[in-house]
């Protein structure tokens, strides 16, 4: 009996790597190229992100598009901002291009996503708000601009 338990445990020990996904705990980001590479932690624990990232994204996209919720945590724009790599010249490399963060695992697992036919695959353009680390600052900038506009309009009223 004792012998049986022992050999059973041995078998489990041997085959254990096959039972868990070979991706657990393994890192897929390229070191030293993206913001994420200099950080410890994703927006959720790594193990959760590896298995559920698309659930967060799908959930977030409905919340954002239909309900207007703009939290950054599960925002696709935010994933890209943090996970995009930069080449030697400081140019951002599309996150879905060969060997990049949102592509390597998907190739291995034969996942096809169309997100980047619409979503910018590098942080791009008019993104005063999402780019800045302190949201508050840029929002107050906008307010400053707007109150200036209101003033203009009031002046116009007085002229009449």
């Amino acid at each position, binding site marked *: 009996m004792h012998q049986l338990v022992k050999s059973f445990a041995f078998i489990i020990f041997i085959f254990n790597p096959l039972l868990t996904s070979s991706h657990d705990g393994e890192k897929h980001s390229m070191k030293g190229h993206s913001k994420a590479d200099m950080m410890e932690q994703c927006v959720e624990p790594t193990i959760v992100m590896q298995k559920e990232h698309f659930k967060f994204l799908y959930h977030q996209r409905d919340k954002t*598009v239909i309900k207007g*919720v703009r939290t*950054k945590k599960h925002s696709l724009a935010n994933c890209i901002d943090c996970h995009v790599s930069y080449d030697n010249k400081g140019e951002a490399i599309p996150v879905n291009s060969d060997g990049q963060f949102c592509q390597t695992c998907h190739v291995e697992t034969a996942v096809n996503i169309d997100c980047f036919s619409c979503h910018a695959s590098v942080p791009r353009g*008019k993104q005063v708000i999402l780019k800045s680390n302190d949201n508050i600052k840029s*929002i107050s900038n906008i307010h400053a601009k707007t109150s200036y506009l209101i003033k203009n*309009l009031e002046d116009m009223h007085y002229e009449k």
Partner: protein
Amino acid sequence: MKNNSLLTRRDFLVKSFTAFSAIYIIPDIIPHASASKPLDKEVDSSTRWAMNVDIDKCVEGCSACVDACVDENGLYGFDRPETDSQWIRKLTLKDIKTEKISTLPMMCQHCENPPCCDVCPTGASFRREDGIVMVNQHTCIGCRYCMMACPFKARSFVHENLTEQVTNAPRGKGCVESCNFCANRIDHGADTTACEEACMNEGHQAITFGDLSNPNSRVNKAIDNKPGRRLRADLALKQRVTYSGF
């Protein structure tokens, strides 16, 4: 630029000038703190975004609003005016009786009874709680019924693969798109759209945007001063975009 297309649809012209019967009734004024919505809060109907265009102030030949929209949403086209996306365009109208020429920006009118949403087979065309009519591109199948249903020709279809989208305005082949009152900016706390801002910066102040529920919003002040009218009021679509000065 692809604006200033002289309005050829006589039909639109005639009706525009004859059918402004319904004067905008200024909605019940609810005292309303117009503090910007926290990022994690859902939009609700206590905010009612609206826009007014004062046609007397809209300058012929000016395309500041169109250009600002292109920049804001990365609407760079392929130099094919027939099919390139336009979320806002300039129209030139001529009054048949007085020969008076006027020019105005035309965009999604954000109807309270939007025909585009009525015909959409997937529910991708929808009206957000705060009154913004838009396309959920994740569920849009590109059938273009909404484009046919829209009396203002406000929507565009993306015919080609796109590459240079800006982060804040994802868009791509096979989907319909249109003005969304700069929903992304608004949700992040701005209370002005790209086109209004450009019009103000240009010094014309023809476009005013704001929350109808807030008596102090710029749009409310503008229509207090000069009533805004709905185009094609006969259709009873109750647009949130109004025009004054006709």
